[in-house]
């Protein structure tokens, strides 16, 4: 039994296909990541899964209920942390949580005790009676998270919750997310931060142009793309001939010029650094640095989409 299951889920805006017939399964207790550039269709997918947008076609079953047929039942089982702050800036955290609690049919007496508990957990207890309009981005996002957890959802959707936050807030947000997951909440997390996705998510779906182009654990995705390691060589003067010769080396599997750098796929081996260093020394070509690292999700993404995520 999957907590989330979609079949040929599609959303069109006129002629534009925002989400193109995606099939997806998310297991109970997973942290599932949607990775992709802006406009890839992540947010639209989340909106359909959270009943905020009606699918053009296809189905989505959340916690056993069809989003199109029983949206109210879906809503009572999910929590959503939207991309932007979606509470009332005029109201204090307690007032905001009271309102959301009432609409979620939580008994009046439970709302207060739960609110206090949640505000303590997201370290906003001291600010519980201060209007939230003056809060920092991180504080707003934590309040938003508290509001999504008030009715104890089974599934938590987080749409780029760390975008625009300072490093400390990002780390805090991730910590809270992990904590929730440990308590049994299934988390669906969208981000365009590769590093974050890799560190946090059990499984990741890479989206581009409305399609899921790859799905799996970070390791699975990497293996799918390449079994080699990456050598980044800072060689500003490298000539075409040099690049061609580099390609001929037995342990080098591909070379790509990226500005003043050469990015190579290389076989795992102890002397890699020395061998590459020798190669350039022999040809009297200047090398600023040589860095050998493991394949990152970013490399996977570039390979799969033929473009840089930061573009």
């Amino acid at each position: 039994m999957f907590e989330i299951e979609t079949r040929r889920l599609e959303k069109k805006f006129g002629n534009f296909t925002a989400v193109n017939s995606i099939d997806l399964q998310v297991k109970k207790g997973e942290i599932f990541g949607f990775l992709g550039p802006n406009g890839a269709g992540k947010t639209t997918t989340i909106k359909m899964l959270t009943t905020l947008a009606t699918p053009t076609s296809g189905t989505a079953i959340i916690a056993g209920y069809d989003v199109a047929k029983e949206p109210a039942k879906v809503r009572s089982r999910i929590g959503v942390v939207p991309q932007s702050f979606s509470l009332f800036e005029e109201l204090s955290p307690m007032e905001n949580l009271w309102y959301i609690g009432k609409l979620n049919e939580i008994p009046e007496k439970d709302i207060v005790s739960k609110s206090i508990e949640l505000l303590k957990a997201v370290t906003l207890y001291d600010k519980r009676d201060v209007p939230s309009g003056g809060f920092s981005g991180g504080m707003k996002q934590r309040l938003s998270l508290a509001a999504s957890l008030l009715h104890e959802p089974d599934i938590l959707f987080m749409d780029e919750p760390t975008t625009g936050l300072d490093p400390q807030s990002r780390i805090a947000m991730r910590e809270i997310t992990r904590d929730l997951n440990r308590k049994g909440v299934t988390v669906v997390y969208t981000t365009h931060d590769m590093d974050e996705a890799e560190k946090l998510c059990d499984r990741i779906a890479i989206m581009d142009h409305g399609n899921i182009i790859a799905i799996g654990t970070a390791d699975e995705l990497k293996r799918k793309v390449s079994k080699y390691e990456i050598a980044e060589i800072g060689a500003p003067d490298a000539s075409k001939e040099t690049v061609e010769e580099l390609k001929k080396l037995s342990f080098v599997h591909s070379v790509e010029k990226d500005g003043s750098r050469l990015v190579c796929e290389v076989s795992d081996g102890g002397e890699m650094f020395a061998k590459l260093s020798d190669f350039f020394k022999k040809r009297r070509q200047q090398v600023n640095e040589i860095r050998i690292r493991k394949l990152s999700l970013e490399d996977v993404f570039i390979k799969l989409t033929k473009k840089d995520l930061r573009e």
Partner: protein
Amino acid sequence: MSRDKKIDKRDADEKIIDLDKVRAIITKNYRVLSHDKTRMLMLFIFPIVMISIFGATTGVTPKHLATAIVDNDQSILSSQMVNQLEALETLSIRYSVGSESEAKKLLDEGNAKAVVVIPRGFEDAVKNGRQATIRLMVDQSDSTVAQIASASIKGFITGLSKQASGQLIGQRQAEAAIAARKVAALEALLYSGGQAAGTADAYDLAAEQATLARYRLLQSTDTLTRLSQAVAANVYSPTNADYLNELAFSYDNAGSKASLVSAMNFDAQYVAQMGTYSGLAAGNMVVLRNVVSTQTLVAQAKAGSLALSAQLDSAAPVANSVQVVLEDFSSTDTVSLADPIKVESVDVYGQRQGIDFALPALIALIIFQGAIMGMGRAIAGERHDGSLTRVFLTPTSDTTILLGTQLFYMVLETFRAIFIVIIAMLAFGLTISGNVFDVLFIIILFTMGATGVGLVISSFAKTEEQFMPMAMLVSLPSMFLAGAFFPIQTMPAMLQGLAKVLPIYYAGDALRGVMVKGFSLMQVLPDVIFLLLFALAMLVISTRVFKREVM
């Protein structure tokens, strides 16, 4: 899975209308507004500014309005009248022109606000008990000025007319008294003549007729006395009651109302006495005929008794003079006796609605604008800033969301309307003629329709930026078609038609009816029904077009 086994409260069906949530939405909106002090302040400052401007421009009587005189009579009476007009505070006689067309030109150019035309033969008519008609033209393009000028000139001329009426009645009274004395003398003569002559029959009959005539004349004198008292006590006449009504509504103060009521009571007495007088005048005709036959009898008696011929000779001219007086009495036109000078208003630019009707329309206007903008903030604005997204994520039905939001703004706008009424009462002496609860009922009904319009617009609009021009499209025409700034009656037929499909027209009409004219709800039932149907239609449309989607 555990939730499949136990009964999960989350599986309960979503209620279409959840009153607990409606209350929560109202509370939330109240808290949001009460935390936003600036917005709160603006909501209540705006109506104060609006009524202050209206009060300042419409509540104060304009003074020294430029007036042109066309004196076609050039008599002592007409120049006296012009002098007295000049003494009025509201008018200032700036022009004295030779013809009506010249005066009309001054009016067209806006140099004169009012024109008074005195007809040729004015003095002659007044002195001889014929009704004279003064023509009055006012600049109706400026409805405030038109009404003030018209009311003050009419009031003045009516007073003048009453003065003349009093004089005429006094004259009649004196004449009647003299006639009565003469008839008494005749009576005495006839009695003594009859006794002396011994021809009792003819003389007795004549004397009897004379007694009757005297009695009639005394009655006439008595009526005329009461008539002159009524005239003295009351400078108004029934024909001017309509204008007084308007005047009282525009300034709406208790004092003028009380004097109006007493004036109208006097008018009623006056009319009754005029009726008695008319009856007496008819009776006098009968007496006259009898007096004529008395003369015949006197002639017969004269033939029979030479001894008394000298005495009877002197009786004949007395009888003659009584005849003249009585003829005069019966031929007197009671209308010109009551109202010797008449004012005829000339509607230069067609009929106009007075400014006294502005306040109810203004209230309707402020509610309408406030409701639309408030709903825009609540629905389109919250959609825009994402807070509606959060509400969409809860198991709360569209109807509950819309109802909760609408109810809050209905309450808010009702409070604002009450606030406006209180300010208008304190600052501009507004009094509500009808039932206060009827006024409240109409206001609540209208806030329902107005918030409904806001709801429909904000349901159509995807963002607050889209909402603003859409709201403008509805609220700006409403502003002009509400009748607050311009009377609807002066608008082209097409615009009048448009005004009549807008709820603000009916709200203004109903409020005017109850607040100004003292109507009951039954008397404004068509307005109430329209407002109710409109509000329900808006409710149905908004739930149909409302989309639970986030862009």
